[in-house]
């Protein structure tokens, strides 16, 4: 098994730089998810690893081999495409066997390997069918079968679930996770869906505009986003961001939000900005509405969105939209009377208003 290393990887289209000198090290067996908004260069990065896109600068290393000049077929990677790209003229078995046959695998072995993969993916009853006669989820599975049957060093996925409906997507998500546990192959997975990223990844790479914003485990990104972009991208709904002015004292700084005061965790960075504006970040799930702590903030409730065990309270805090996520159990009847919340100061993030970088955190 081998890892994948990107060093100073660049992709240019003419003068347009769409991947900007990114560095990333994917460990053997690791499941890494590239996530970011549309057009940020995720697919381009993945395709450079696959060899489908020429590399404008930097290096891609698979295992201990620099593959910049290696043809896709010799990189020993397999890719699952967003549109599946199943061969419509071949049945499921032949689709899965295509790569094996091209590589001149002995016949009896091909049969065994296809049967094995079909078994893993639950495709055995459909081996004789053409792709046109399969459901979306089944097609998706065939596409994965085609990738795993070859036992490649690395799996690449480019938004493999984006064509499925929500229910099937979560089902396939679990299946991909199971598959990875079982096969333990280094995987790089592209998505713009942060839920997919959170649930699948060992580590998440958040990309924006051709550059990497942050790399970390899902919980690291969730709890300690390095900037407002990551904070606004990870979590559903994402972190609330409110403009505030730092006041109080260096030892006990507070954020002035409108005319309300919110105690902040003390830090040198924050103390430095006394009197200046910052962005305060509060996760929707960290806002407590049922047993208010010290110095709660008043909000104006606009809408209650009930999701079942949880509800989203759409409120306004100093005229800025603010979303609170709370449990419904026991409290359901009082949700529409919520008028304030409190938050543990240690769960509050403070970001520089201009650069968006987090303040008062190691490495920030």
């Amino acid at each position: 098994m081998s890892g994948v290393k990107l060093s100073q990887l660049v992709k240019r289209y003419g003068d347009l730089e769409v991947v900007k000198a990114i560095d990333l090290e994917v460990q053997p067996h690791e499941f890494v998810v590239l996530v970011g908004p549309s057009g940020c260069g995720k697919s381009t990065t993945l395709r450079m690893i696959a060899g489908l896109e020429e590399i404008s600068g930097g290096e891609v290393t698979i295992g201990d081999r620099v593959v910049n000049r290696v043809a896709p077929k010799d990189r020993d990677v397999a890719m699952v495409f967003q549109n599946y790209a199943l061969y419509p003229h071949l049945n499921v078995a032949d689709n899965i066997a295509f790569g094996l046959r091209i590589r001149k695998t002995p016949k009896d072995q091909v049969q065994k390997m296809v049967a094995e993969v079909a078994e893993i993916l639950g495709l055995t009853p459909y081996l004789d069918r053409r792709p046109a006669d399969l459901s979306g989820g089944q097609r998706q599975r065939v596409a994965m079968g085609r990738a795993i049957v070859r036992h490649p060093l690395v799996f690449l996925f480019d938004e493999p679930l984006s064509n499925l409906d929500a229910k099937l997507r979560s089902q396939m998500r679990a299946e991909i996770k199971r598959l990875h546990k079982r096969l333990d192959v280094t995987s790089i997975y592209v998505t713009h869906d942060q839920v997919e990223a959170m649930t699948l990844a060992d580590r998440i790479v958040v990309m924006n505009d051709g550059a990497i914003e942050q790399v970390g485990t899902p919980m690291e990104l969730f709890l300690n986003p390095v900037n407002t972009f990551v904070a606004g991208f990870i979590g559903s709904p994402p972190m609330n961001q409110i403009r505030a002015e730092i006041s109080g004292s260096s030892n006990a700084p507070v954020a002035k939000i409108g005319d309300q005061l919110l105690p902040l965790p003390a830090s040198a960075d924050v103390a430095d900005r006394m009197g200046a504006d910052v962005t305060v970040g509060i996760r929707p799930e960290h806002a407590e509405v049922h047993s208010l702590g010290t110095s709660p903030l008043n909000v104006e409730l606009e809408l209650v969105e009930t999701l079942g065990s949880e509800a989203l309270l759409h409120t306004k805090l100093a005229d800025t939209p603010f979303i609170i996520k709370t449990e419904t159990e026991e409290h359901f009847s009082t949700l529409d009377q919520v008028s304030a919340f409190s938050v543990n100061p240690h769960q509050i993030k403070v970001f520089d208003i201009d650069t968006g970088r987090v303040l008062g955190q190691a490495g920030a």
Partner: protein
Amino acid sequence: MMNWNLYSRGDKFFAIVVSVLVGMFTAATLYPFIYIAAVSFSSGFAAQAGKVVLTPIDSTLEAYKYILIQPEFWLSYRNTFIYTIGGTIMSLLFIIPGAYALSRPQLYGRRFLNLFVAFTMWFNAGLIPFYLNMRDLNLLDSMFGIIIGFAVNAFNIILLRNFFESIPESFEEAARMDGANDFQVLWKVFIPLSKPAIATITLFCIVARWNGFFWAMVLLSSEEKIPLQVFLRHTISNLSDDDEFAMTQLEAAYSAETVTAAIIVCSIIPVLLVYPWIQKYFEKGILLGGVKE
């Protein structure tokens, strides 16, 4: 089937007009066939007198007898098969790889090469230079010359190239990831996916070859190499020039008209047999289910 009552009045009117037009067009296309067939089975006298309209008059097989006993007829028939099969295979051998290459974005100088190919659709050297060219290549009066000389046709290349271009790129990419080289991508993915387009150009090639007449007449001088269409022409001119024949045909059961018609019928039959066989490759939506957009 739609329920007729579900049509609005305007739709009904439209459906009727369309049906009538289609009917007229069908009749106009079909009638010459029926007429020729009827003439070929009529007596020479009736045909000459212009009595044949829809069905044979004074039915007879004399015209067929006249041509079927001629060895030249069978020879030219065989030659036409050789030109058609050989020429079509040769065309596909050039057109498919050519169209594939021209459809690939990575082809160096692709825009220019495409223009170059299209150029030959609008301009060509003309009769004399082409003839001289064939002469210099030692391909006059050569069956191989006929087969290779007309194998490449820009229109067919462009047609197939456009079809190849419409195949989503991810098919090629998936095949490449699976380890396929250029040739395997073409052979195992693009050709199977392009069956309808390839069937179309195959049919174009077959029909063009089968009916090929002019260049065969210009380039071939040996009687034993001519195709059926040239034989037909020879027969027509022979029969009308032949005084002896003209004298006898007053009583004869055949005439120049019926013999010509009989040859035409004989030459149509193979095309009629081939067409339905090719048509089954005109499957619609073969890409269906392979990719999801």
